[in-house]
């Protein structure tokens, strides 16, 4: 038997209807909202799964709210939040439950090619290539290539040295480049 959240829901609705949410919540939302599009992009590139990406960003957003006391006052939310998103994705990729719902990459490619999913051939190749990268390599590549972060920041978020960040990005580049080359060849 599931407990029902009716009391909480009615309280929330009242607050929203009256337009009097806590000022801290409103301020946080105002900072967070413009970052969500990019955050969902990071998560999508790392997890390669639309629903999982939404989960990751939702979880990262909740963590950011709960831990906002850790943020240096006056600093931009962007790098701090994106770091939480990237680490949330890495956590999900490393988690022992990650395999429970993730599609087999080959199955996904086959399904797409058989017409069940509308997807471009080159995208499928890229996707399959990214799936072959380790979580940490994928994270470094996404931070560098999707967020355009300098290696110093990639290293900071990934928790590694700058040189390690560079080598991870290079590894990812090689894999993706070979997929792109394959994509241009006749099949």
């Amino acid at each position: 038997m599931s407990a029902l959240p009716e009391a909480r829901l009615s309280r929330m609705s009242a607050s929203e209807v009256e337009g009097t949410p806590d000022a801290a919540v409103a301020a946080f939302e105002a900072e967070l909202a413009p970052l969500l599009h990019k955050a969902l992009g990071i998560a999508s590139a790392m997890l390669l799964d639309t629903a999982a990406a939404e989960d990751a960003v939702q979880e990262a957003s909740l963590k950011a709210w709960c831990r906002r006391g850790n943020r240096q006052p006056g600093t931009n939310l962007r790098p701090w939040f994106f770091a939480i998103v990237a680490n949330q994705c890495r956590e999900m990729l490393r988690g022992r439950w990650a395999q429970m719902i993730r599609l087999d990459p080959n199955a996904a490619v086959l399904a797409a090619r058989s017409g069940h999913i509308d997807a471009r051939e080159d995208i499928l190749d890229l996707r399959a290539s990214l799936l072959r990268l380790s979580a940490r390599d994928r994270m470094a590549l996404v931070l560098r290539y999707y967020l355009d972060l300098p290696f110093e920041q990639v290293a900071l978020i990934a928790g590694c040295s700058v040189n390690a960040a560079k080598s991870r990005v290079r590894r990812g580049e090689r894999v993706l480049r070979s997929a792109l080359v394959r994509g241009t060849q006749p099949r």
Partner: protein
Amino acid sequence: MSENDLDPAVREGLHSLVASTAPGADAEARILHSVRATALQTGSQPQRRFFDAGRPLWEVALAILTAAVVAGSVVAGIAVLARHAPSPAHPPVSARATPTASPPPTPSASPATPSATPTSAQWVSRFVPLGDVAAIVLGPGSVYVIYNPPIQSGGYSPALARVVRIDRSNGAVEHGGAFPGAETLALAGGYLWVASGPSPGVASTDANVLYRLNASTLAVEQRSSITGLAGTSNLEPPALTAADNLLWIGYGPHVARLSATTGAPIWSRDVGGTGSVSSVSVDPTGRLLYAGFDSDRPSIAELSAITGTTVTESSAYFGFDLGGPKLAAFVGYVWVAYATGNDGTNVELHAANLALSAGGVDGLHTNGIDVFRGNGILWMSDGMAGELFCADEASGAVRATFDWPLGGLIAADPSGTVVGGFSGVSFLRTNPVCYS
């Protein structure tokens, strides 16, 4: 190309891939809604680092001192609970003696309500015959039910479990098909979640499955395994609970928070040891999650609903391996019902340290006792006594009693109260005494 240059082809490829995979703007709206809901629950004060640079030393020292005192009071609280643990000889207490507000007998009020005896029939506005109701949850316009249809040889089989949606306005039933072994359901993230356990007669491929259903059509959209949660010596079926966009499951020794979108575990904690979860209940703020464990020494754990961190636990007397404690969480306290072997009982525990509330004991039920939170008040069902109770959520004092053979599962919200019994679902008229 220098080492700081980006390969344009790789960059374009990655951006194209993101564009084809990333969720749309509606996902952003859902996330903001979820953050707002959580933020409004958790208040505006952020968690601070324990040794925050900006935190005065005296505050850190005070926190350490407070933690020490709280640790001491937890031990003391559990000790008090143990001393006051109800025994079969526990005398009746005031709540039981409170004059009840049972409606007067009206034998002809509702001939089509086999779940309600004449004394309670006047409160039944509609009865939907189904079978043995295993789980029930309320949505804005619908009641979702797992039931086991009667079988020819008599009795009910979980292997034949079915899910239905009942329209609350007219009682129309939409059938969602068979879900062998289905035991629990919850509404979260706009989906109906159903979980099955390994009941007799249920094929192994149908056991330990978490289904995501379209809440309107009841079509199965996703099916995933929860075998990993079950543990090796599982005694109890899975138990789902939800709050808005958040979903939790208790199964085997594990409690886990699941994504309300994909069902994937966000975290899972093994807090049951050799036992298995008998009940989970999240408090109305959505901040604290309670899990009861059935084992040779039943226990209760209090966890952060968001992170899964254990706040406290109690292994005081909660019966003896007889189905484990059943829970109904309120803000600041949780009601616990459990079988003792002779008489079931229910007790109220304070949330912060799970210590027994002074005077919170309502003794002399039967082993069929169960507790529910519904529309802000405490509901109890005593199947072996054949009674339902609505009670004061803080004191446990019974406000009204309903005669109800074999008891039932109770769900209530501002739109009404629904009872799932052994033969179907009854919609109750509001008894004003319950909310006095």
